[in-house]
């Protein structure tokens, strides 16, 4: 009887212990490489640490006070918020649209999937480099093409004597030197490089919608649009939430693309928070101040994510 009891206790213990043992390796890695640096970051944010073997001296909240009077940091923060506000809906709906299109029975559907997913496999640095080659003001392919077309002036030939076209002066345009062009270039570059990734998430979610729902909809006389609005879109709620949060966090953290694409320019027009923090830490060697900026950024992302989760719960089951 005692043996039986001991075996049962051991069984219960195993039931409780084993899951934690499986989680242990990941917890150790998470603790060492995520939690510890995060705590160190909070500690450094309260000091005047400059790196280079410097001993951190407590300045308490001075760094926080200073960064909120730093006009350049506030500009980078505002720029990041604007980027999230503009890019997030674009990436979200482009990836959803692509997912809906390639989930249909199309010829060479696999090829389309590969094409749309292909930019995801390119490293961020290379993405930045590719588009810099294309958009560079003086050596870029875009301006090279415009110059060639401008010199070509086919419409001035006898064959195309069109008065309207003759008035068009085609030539190089200001690309990465223009703050507006560069900023929207970042929006385009991010969308191009990441939409495929979120598309795959939507495709997985789309394929898991029971066909019976569509059959029921058809019986009720629903058209394509109504089926999308009343069946597809609500069924995608968990995927939508995940894509929304993941994409937002990724845009908040945007950095390697930009360093290669615009370098944060022209004149800081594409200077976002992470690059600013990086430069504060490693160019100006203010690791304390940079840590405070990172903490502020974490809070921003947490508030955003929390709000999204709260709103999604309030909405209840659609």
């Amino acid at each position, binding site marked *: 009887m005692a043996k039986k009891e001991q075996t049962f206790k051991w069984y219960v213990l195993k039931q409780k212990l084993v899951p934690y043992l499986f989680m242990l390796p990941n917890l150790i890695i998470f603790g060492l490489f995520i939690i510890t640096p995060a705590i160190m970051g909070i500690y450094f944010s309260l000091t005047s640490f400059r*790196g*280079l*073997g410097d001993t951190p001296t407590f300045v308490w909240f001075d760094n926080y006070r200073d960064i909120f009077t730093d006009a350049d940091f506030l500009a980078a923060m505002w720029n990041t918020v604007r980027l999230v506000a503009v890019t997030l809906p674009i990436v979200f709906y482009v990836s959803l649209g692509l997912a809906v299109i390639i989930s249909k029975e199309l010829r060479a559907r696999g090829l389309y999937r590969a094409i749309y997913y292909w930019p995801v496999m390119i490293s961020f640095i290379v993405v930045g480099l590719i588009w810099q080659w294309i958009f*560079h*003001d*003086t*050596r870029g392919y875009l301006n090279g093409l415009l110059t060639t077309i401008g010199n070509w002036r086919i419409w001035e030939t006898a064959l195309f004597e069109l008065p309207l076209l003759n008035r068009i002066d085609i030539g190089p345009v200001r690309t*990465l*030197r223009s703050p507006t062009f*560069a900023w929207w270039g970042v929006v385009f570059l991010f969308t191009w490089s990441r939409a495929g990734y979120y598309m795959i998430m939507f495709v997985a979610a789309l394929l898991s919608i029971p066909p019976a729902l569509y059959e029921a909809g058809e019986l009720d006389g629903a058209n394509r649009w109504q089926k999308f609005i009343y069946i597809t879109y609500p069924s995608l709620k968990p995927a939508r939430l995940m894509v929304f949060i993941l994409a937002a966090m990724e845009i908040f953290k945007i950095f390697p693309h930009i360093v290669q694409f*615009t*370098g*944060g*320019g*022209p*004149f*800081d027009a594409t200077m976002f928070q992470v690059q600013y923090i990086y430069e504060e830490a*490693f*160019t*100006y*060697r203010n690791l304390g101040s940079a840590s405070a900026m990172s903490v502020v950024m974490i809070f921003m992302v947490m508030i955003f994510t929390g709000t999204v989760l709260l709103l999604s719960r309030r909405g209840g089951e659609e």
Partner: protein
Amino acid sequence: MKKFLALSLILMLGLVIAACGEREQPDMQMMWFSDGIEGEVMEDMLERYREETGVWIELFEIGWDDYETRLGTMVDGDDAPDLIRTTEGVMNNFKEHFVSLDGVYDEAGFTNIFYNDDNEPIGLPMDVTANGLYVNLELLDAHEVEYPVHDGENWIFNGEERVWTWTEFVTEMEKLVGAEGVTYPGTYDPQGHRFMPMIYQQGIKIWDEPFVSTNLTSDEAVAALTLLQDFYHGDLVDDAPIANWNPGGAPSNFETGMYGFHMSGNWFASDYATLDFDWTVAPMPTGETGVRATLLGGKSMSAMQGENVDMALDFITWLAEPANHDEFNNGVPFLSGRIGAEIDFGELEGPYQVFQDEINATPAEYAADWLQMTQVVGIYPIINDMVQDVADPDGLTPLEALEKAEQAIMDSLEDN
């Protein structure tokens, strides 16, 4: 299948054993950055040093953009290199980590020596650098742009024995605006360092009283920065390198052959030797006072605190020997930090004579003034911000940018 598995296992085992095998380790490591071929020249010298002494020094290169960041990480990780190629900025930012070279070489035989707070040298001057103006002769001649020429004794401009002024420079270079085959009249390295001679050319020092007050908000400094701002806003200079902070952009521009001038320094001369158009170095213009000035700088060899200090100092002693020192500067070629060194510049003799002439024409008090300026912690980012602020069409006025820079210098002096 079994055979395949057995073979795979043997292969993996072999790889693991090979990976665990002891690799021969160098005796010391040297951190390096290159603008041209100087890394290759140093590699050859290290090979010879190994043959002579049996000491193996491994050279590893880091791009200049990441140089100080990587060094900082290595110092923090207690993994600093034994030897390192340094600039004044690097020596200043890390000065407590360098070994004193007091007595290691004869200081009287060298120029441009950088000292730590205890007035001990912490670098062996290797090559001397000077800012200068590269011009594309083919483009300038094609568009009848006048520039000073040397008659063997003096610079002649407009029939007079003198160099040009900035006003005359602008008048001449404006001939290239919109001209055929010209992208922009000129291109300028984005670093604030390239602008600073313009302040001296106005006839003033930057320090009013060293480490106490500056002349940065004087009329002369404002005039100098206004000139630079006009270059950018008036389309005389391509603003892409500074707008997108791309230091490599300016030399790339010049290499296209579609820019009339490139404001930079002697370190690009060896790279430009292979260009397929005629170019030379022209003297930099002066302010209305007629004062000529360049910004002297240089690269040094320093030893860092660590386990191999004695070996590192032995190498520096060896490197300071005239024959070895000259081998490096002749190999590139570079202007030498060794007084009396005879360097064969080969086909670059003409351009280097101009750089040497710029150095000779620079008043000694300006050279000393700049050396003191390099001792301000974080001076380079401060002056970089300053020029970027005025190049920005929506940025600051020259006076505002100079006031901001002055404040940042004072803050740095107070903090450090």
